[in-house]
C-alpha cells in the first residue's frame, strides 16, 4: 500500500536541493560564527548571505531578521518581547481567536502577567473584520497580532488593511505568516507589518529553524540570555546548517511559488472532483475564494474526527484536523468553533487536507478514492 501524504500544512518533506545544500555544510563548515578566526568567519559569511536572501524574500533588510528555532519561538518572541518592551506605553493587546496556539497560549500567558488581551471574533467567511479591530483599538494598545493565513482553514486574513489602520497608531503589528509564506508573495513594506514569523519546515526546509522579522527600531526584549547573537535578541550559537537549508528552501520556493500554486490548486480541484463524483456528502469550511491553494478543510457530516483520521491512516492517507484528539481528549477545533459556533458538528467532523511536494495527480486521485470509500463505509 502506498502511503499518501496530504498533510503539508503540518510539515513538508525537504526538497532535494535543500538537502544537497546542507550536506557540505555539515561536512565542511563547523566553525562558530562568533569566533574570531577563519573557521568562525566562514560560518559567519554563510550566515550573512542567508540572512540577505531571507530578508529580501519579504522585502526587508538583513538587520531585521532574527533567526529562531521556528514559528513558535518567533511568535513567542514577537508577543512577549514587544509586550515587555512597550509596557510603559500601555498594556492592551489585540489578537484573534483563530490564531495558532503559539500565539493564543502566549497571549493567555501575557494575560496572566497582567496585560489585557482582546480576542477578535471571526465571521462566517472565516475572516476577522477590520471594523471589529477598529472598535477594539484603544490608545493603550501596544500590540496587534493577526495571522496571515489560518493554518486550519487556509483562509487569508486582511493583513494589509490592518497594517494600513495601524500606520497611525502606536501599536506594533505582528503577523504569524507561517502558513502564508510558501504560497503568498509577502512585502512587509506594503503590508505595514512590524513583526512577522516564518518557519522553514513548512516550505520544504529543515525543522528547527525559522525567523522573526522585526522592523528596524522596534523595541523587543529578549526572552533568553547569553551571548550577543542576533543582536542580543536571541542569544545562542546559530544553527548554521539549518539556516543554509532554510535559505535554499526560500530560493527554490521563490522561483517555483507560482507554478506550485497552480499545481496545488489543481490537486485540490481533483480531490474535490472525486468526492463529488462518488456522491460524498461534504462541506468546505470557509470561503474557498479566499483560501490558499494548497489547503482545503472539509466537513463530513455524520462522522467524527478520531474515527476518520484513524481510518485514513490505516488506509495509508495522512491528513489531520484542528481538533486535538491525543490521549482521547476531544477538543473541538477552536478555529471552526470560532467561525461556526462551539456546538456546530463541523468542529468535530472536519479534516484538513493540504497538498504539496509529496503529491502527484495520481496519488491525489488515489487518496480521494480511498477517502470516499471510507466515508461511504462510515456514513451508513
Amino acid at each position: 500500500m502506498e502511503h499518501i501524504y496530504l498533510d503539508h500544512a503540518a510539515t513538508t518533506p525537504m526538497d532535494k536541493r535543500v538537502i544537497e545544500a546542507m550536506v557540505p555544510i555539515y561536512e565542511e563548515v563547523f566553525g562558530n560564527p562568533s569566533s574570531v578566526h577563519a573557521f568562525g568567519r566562514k560560518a559567519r559569511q554563510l550566515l550573512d548571505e542567508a540572512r540577505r536572501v531571507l530578508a529580501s524574500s519579504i522585502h526587508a533588510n538583513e538587520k531585521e531578521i532574527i533567526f529562531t528555532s521556528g514559528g513558535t519561538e518567533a511568535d513567542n518572541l514577537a508577543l512577549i518581547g514587544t509586550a515587555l518592551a512597550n509596557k510603559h506605553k500601555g498594556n492592551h493587546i489585540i489578537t484573534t481567536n483563530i490564531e495558532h496556539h503559539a500565539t493564543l497560549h502566549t497571549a493567555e500567558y501575557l494575560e496572566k502577567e497582567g496585560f489585557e488581551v482582546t480576542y477578535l471574533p471571526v465571521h462566517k467567511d472565516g475572516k476577522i473584520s477590520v471594523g471589529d479591530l477598529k472598535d477594539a483599538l484603544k490608545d493603550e494598545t501596544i500590540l496587534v497580532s493577526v495571522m496571515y493565513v489560518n493554518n486550519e482553514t487556509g483562509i487569508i486574513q486582511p493583513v494589509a488593511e490592518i497594517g494600513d489602520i495601524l500606520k497611525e497608531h502606536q501599536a506594533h503589528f505582528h503577523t504569524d505568516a507561517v502558513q502564508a509564506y510558501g504560497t503568498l508573495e509577502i512585502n512587509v513594506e506594503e503590508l505595514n507589518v512590524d513583526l512577522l514569523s516564518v518557519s522553514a519546515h513548512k516550505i520544504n526546509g529543515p525543522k528547527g529553524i525559522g525567523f522573526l522579522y522585526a522592523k528596524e527600531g522596534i523595541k523587543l526584549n529578549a526572552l533568553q540570555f547569553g551571548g550577543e547573537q542576533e543582536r542580543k535578541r536571541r542569544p545562542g550559537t546559530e544553527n548554521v546548517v539549518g539556516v543554509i537549508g532554510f535559505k535554499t528552501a526560500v530560493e527554490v520556493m521563490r522561483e517555483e511559488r507560482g507554478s506550485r500554486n497552480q499545481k496545488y490548486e489543481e490537486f485540490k480541484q481533483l480531490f474535490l472532483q472525486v468526492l463529488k463524483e462518488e456522491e460524498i456528502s461534504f462541506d468546505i469550511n470557509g470561503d474557498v475564494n479566499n483560501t490558499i491553494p494548497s489547503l482545503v478543510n472539509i466537513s463530513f457530516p455524520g462522522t467524527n474526527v478520531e474515527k476518520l483520521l484513524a481510518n485514513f491512516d490505516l488506509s495509508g492517507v495522512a491528513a489531520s484536523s484542528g481538533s486535538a484528539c491525543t490521549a482521547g481528549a476531544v477538543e473541538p477545533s477552536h478555529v471552526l468553533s470560532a467561525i461556526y459556533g462551539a456546538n456546530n458538528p463541523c468542529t468535530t467532523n472536519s479534516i484538513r487536507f493540504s497538498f504539496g511536494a509529496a503529491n502527484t495527480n495520481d496519488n491525489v486521485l488515489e487518496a480521494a478514492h480511498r477517502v470516499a470509500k471510507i466515508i461511504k463505509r462510515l456514513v451508513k
Partner: protein
Amino acid sequence: MMKENKDIRVVVGMSGGVDSSVAALLLKEQGYDVVGIFMKNWDDTDEFGVCTATEDFDDVVRVCNQLDIPYYSVNFEKQYWDKVFTYFLDEYKAGRTPNPDVMCNKEIKFKAFLDYALDLGADYLATGHYAQVRESNGKFKMLRGVDSNKDQTYFLNQLTSDILEKVMFPLGALPKSKVREIASAHGLATATKKDSTGICFIGERNFKEFLSEYLPAQPGEMQTLEGEVKGKHDGLMYYTIGQRQGLGIGGSGDPWFVVGKNLKENILYVEQGFGNESLYSDELTATDLNWINPDDVSQTFSCTAKFRYRQEDSAVTVQRLENGNVRVIFDERQRAITPGQAVVFYNGEVCLGGGTIDKVIRQNQVLDYVG
C-alpha cells in the same frame, strides 16, 4: 480460504498497563495486523490541567512504538457517563453496591468500543483480560483465565457468544507472573508499571470523598436489628454488607459488622461478630441475567457460582423464573451476599453468564434489612 494472520486486523484496547501491552505484543508476534487504541472514559483533569489519561496514553505510545504498531485514541466519556456512571450512582442511591466494571465491559468495552474497532476494519477486538474464548460447534464459550488469582470472567459475565466470536484474550492462558516476565524480556516501557487498583474513574482517590461530590451524604443512626442505637453513620452509601472497617463502635466483645440498611429511615444496621447469624443467607434472586450460550443452561440446574470477585466458587442450584430472573439456592449458607454485586455461574471452567444480585433470602424469608 483461511486468511493469513497478517491480513487479520486485531484492534487491541490498550490502557497503558502491562497486561494490554503484553496482549498487543503477543498478537504482533503471531503476525496479526495489530492496531492499538487507547480509550478515554473519564475526565479527571485536575486544576493544573494534568490528567492521568495523558500519562497512560504516553505509555501506550511508547509501547506501540516499541512494537511498531499504529496507535490512536478514542473518547467514550459521554457513553461512559450515560451508561456506566449513571447506573453506578443510581445503585448507590438505591442503597446497593454496584459493580461498574461489569457495566463498563457490557456497555463500553464490548459494545461501543467493539463497534468502533469494527469501524476501523477490525476482524477482532483484543483486550488484556484474563479469560479465554473457546469455539465449539460455532458457539463461543468463555473460560476462566488459567491464573485463578487473576481470572476476570466475573467482570465479563454479560458478554455473549456473538460478541466472543469477535474477541481475543491473548493473556487467558498465561499466569500473571509470566506476563510480567514477557514484558521485562522485551523491555516494554510498561514492564514494571504498577497494576491499577480500584474503580477506574476513582483511581487512587478517597472513595468517600469521590462519592460525596456526586451524591449528598445523609448521616443517620447506626442501630442493631433490634433497634439499639450504636452510633452515627456518615451516609448509607458509604457502607457495604459485611463491612467491618470504619464503624467506630467501641466497647468489649466481638467486632461489629454492617448487616443491612434501611433506606426509608436512613438507618445502618450493625451486628456483632464475624459469624453473626444476620449476615448469612441460603438463597438469592438475581435480575438482568445474561447467558453466554443460552442452550448451555436448562430450566433448573446445578453449577457453581461466585458472589464477589476473587471468591472461591460455591455450589448452587439455579432456577430460571418465567420473568427471566433467577432464584439461586446455595448448597451451603453464604455470608454477606450483597445486592447490586454480580452473581456469576460456572460449569467447571466455563463461565455460563450471570446477573445482578437483587434479594437475599434466609429460610424462605427475604431479608428486607439487606436492601
